[in-house]
């Protein structure tokens, strides 16, 4: 007689996250400096998507520690760093609201 196993639902893995960054996608020139600078290694460069100027740009995954290394090394002022008052558990994978898509052309028109 075989013992019946209880069907279990896989638990989505989570990552402790202490902060987040806002990524000004349209300001990026795709130089990759932030990727190597990121201490927890949660920034990855897009491979098949580009900003309005045709550059690849970084994307954030869960696990940011708000160490500000990305903002310090970025030549194009792409990052704004936020630190959470209490660390949170975020589901593993991309953090969708990190990207900030501003309409560069519209902003230029408004300015002129």
């Amino acid at each position, binding site marked *: 007689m075989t013992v019946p196993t209880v069907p279990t639902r896989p638990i989505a893995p989570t990552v402790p996250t202490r902060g987040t960054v806002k990524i000004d996608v349209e300001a990026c020139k795709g130089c990759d400096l932030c*990727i190597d600078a990121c201490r927890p290694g949660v920034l990855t460069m897009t491979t098949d998507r580009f900003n309005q100027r045709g550059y690849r740009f970084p994307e954030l995954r869960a696990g940011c520690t708000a160490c500000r290394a990305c903002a310090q090394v970025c030549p194009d002022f792409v990052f704004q760093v936020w630190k959470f008052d209490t660390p949170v558990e975020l589901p593993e994978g991309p953090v969708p609201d990190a990207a900030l898509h501003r309409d560069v052309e519209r902003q230029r028109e408004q300015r002129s």
Partner: protein
Amino acid sequence: MSSQLVVEFKPKLLQSSEHELCPGCGHSVAFRVVLDVVEELDLKPVLLAGHGCYTQLMVQSDLDSLQCLHGRAPAAATGVKRMLPTTPVITLQGDGDMVTEGLHEILHAAARGEQFTALLFNNGVFGDTGGHLTATTVVGQRTKTSLEGRDPALHGYPLNIGQLLAQVEGAAYVARGAVNSAGMIARTQRMVRRALELQLEGAGFTFVEILTMCPTGWFVPTSEGPEYLEDAMITTFGIGELKAPPG
């Protein structure tokens, strides 16, 4: 879930974050370091720049500024500081501007012990005017006029400007930093801060050299810029305070 803003996109003293510098350029990183220190110390300095890629950042910054003739920023700074002795004065020059075109200007300003802070953004190449060899191009480095790498037999050896200035009696503080990693950037920020504090104390001539990446001029991929800087430039010149008053 509450959170706090740790770092803003751009320094407050920069009016726009848009600039025309190449991808992976170290100049804007170094300029951020300078503006962050100026903001921290709550200074209203006069900035005198030479000619180079960094000049467009100076134009965008919210500081009183003046663009000087090639290599002549120390002479202009001498005039400004003598007329406005309580105003902090900063010069900003590249290696082509300071070391190749205006070497005597900076040496004499240091020898006179002029009370301003000279900053050098050293990337070992004339970035703005076409990417040719400068007096600080390191041995083996490729530029538009040394395509096979700098050869001492043909092009001579690079000048170590920090070492030269450290020998001059009028120089109170001489240091060299770099912007190839977050840790090095923090260290460089402390050097710039110390130089400006010493200027406010009236210690004498202060100088900080900041090694910056120029992947376009070096013919390396942008992601390899910091590594190249470490292997080629830091190995040749070294990092740290070359001269500092005790305490």
